């Protein structure tokens, strides 16, 4: 079975995710932790991130509505988001969280609101791109994935 076309696609997709700043080195670290004993580790941890972060985004949005002056609460919520984002290598997300935190310390409510919109967009985009990436990986199967020849 000739996987070279598929592999090229995977390689080029991953490269563009890195070149465009969606992902950073931490994502490679995750892939290194994947092996026969944990063949879907990256996809699983990324799925946990998206589940967790969707909840956090909702909480942040609600906090902006209900407690707009509580920048401490907002900062603390975004801090969690930023932390788990950085754990999976979500660079753009992490950077947008830093922007949000900066607005919090400036007590800039409008800035926070704009930042949240950006975070939601980045979140949706990354989710979609990674879903595509994992779909491609699934097509090659575990043996091909383990070879990591497209790194």
């Amino acid at each position, binding site marked *: 079975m000739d996987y070279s076309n598929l592999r090229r696609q995977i390689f080029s997709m991953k490269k563009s995710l890195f070149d465009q700043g969606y992902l950073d080195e931490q994502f490679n670290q995750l892939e290194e*932790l994947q092996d026969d004993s944990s063949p879907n*580790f990256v996809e699983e*941890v990324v799925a*946990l991130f998206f589940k967790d972060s969707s909840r956090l985004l909702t909480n942040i949005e609600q906090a902006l509505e209900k407690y707009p002056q509580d920048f401490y609460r907002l900062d603390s919520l975004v801090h*969690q988001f930023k932390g*788990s984002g*950085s754990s*999976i*290598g979500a660079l753009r997300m992490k950077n947008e969280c830093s922007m949000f935190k900066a607005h919090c310390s400036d007590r800039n409510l409008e800035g926070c609101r704009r930042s949240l919109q950006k975070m939601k967009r980045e979140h949706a985009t990354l989710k979609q791109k990674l879903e595509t990436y994992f779909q491609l990986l699934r097509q090659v199967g575990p043996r091909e994935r383990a070879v990591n020849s497209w790194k």
Partner: protein
Amino acid sequence: MAVATETPFHVLAVDDSLPDRKLIERLLKTSSFQVTTVDSGSKALEFLGIHGEDSSPPVSVHEDQLEVAVNLIITDYCMPGMTGYDLLKKIKESTSLRDIPVVIMSSENIPSRINRCLEEGADEFFLKPVRLSDMSKLKPHILKSRCKEHYHQEQHQQSDSSSNECSNTTNSSSSSSDNSNSRKRKAEDNEEVLPQTNRSRHN
């Protein structure tokens, strides 16, 4: 010399973030540690056998958990309720737990925070995201604390036998006897460690 059947070291990992817990668990397992993860400082203390001020035996802990020694605790700093620092303090305040090495993880590089933790007795501070290369720093702390433990037990045994011989007399004779003691201890490791852990459960 029962080296072939060495039990892996057991690490208790504490982090309120689900993806982070999964990551630390994977990092630890890949590095051949046995892992238990909990999502809060209070659950960590429960697992370790402490209930706040009252150190009565835990009610909800399984029978087998009581038999499992924890060789190292790695905890996130920023957690709601009890922070990693609070947890560190509680561990160091406990006579039965204070020799267990504690590592703090944080996504923020704040020197005053790091110093505070180290001063309180943390053995290591990792900046998140934690990497595989960080895992190699854990075993030395575990081994160091075991040497301390063996030394304490040796002192205890020596005072029991009412011998005045100091264990730090020089020369190969004493070091070879130390070696044979530690070899013997290795084979009985689990039994040696358990009494201390059990004590912490049944205070």
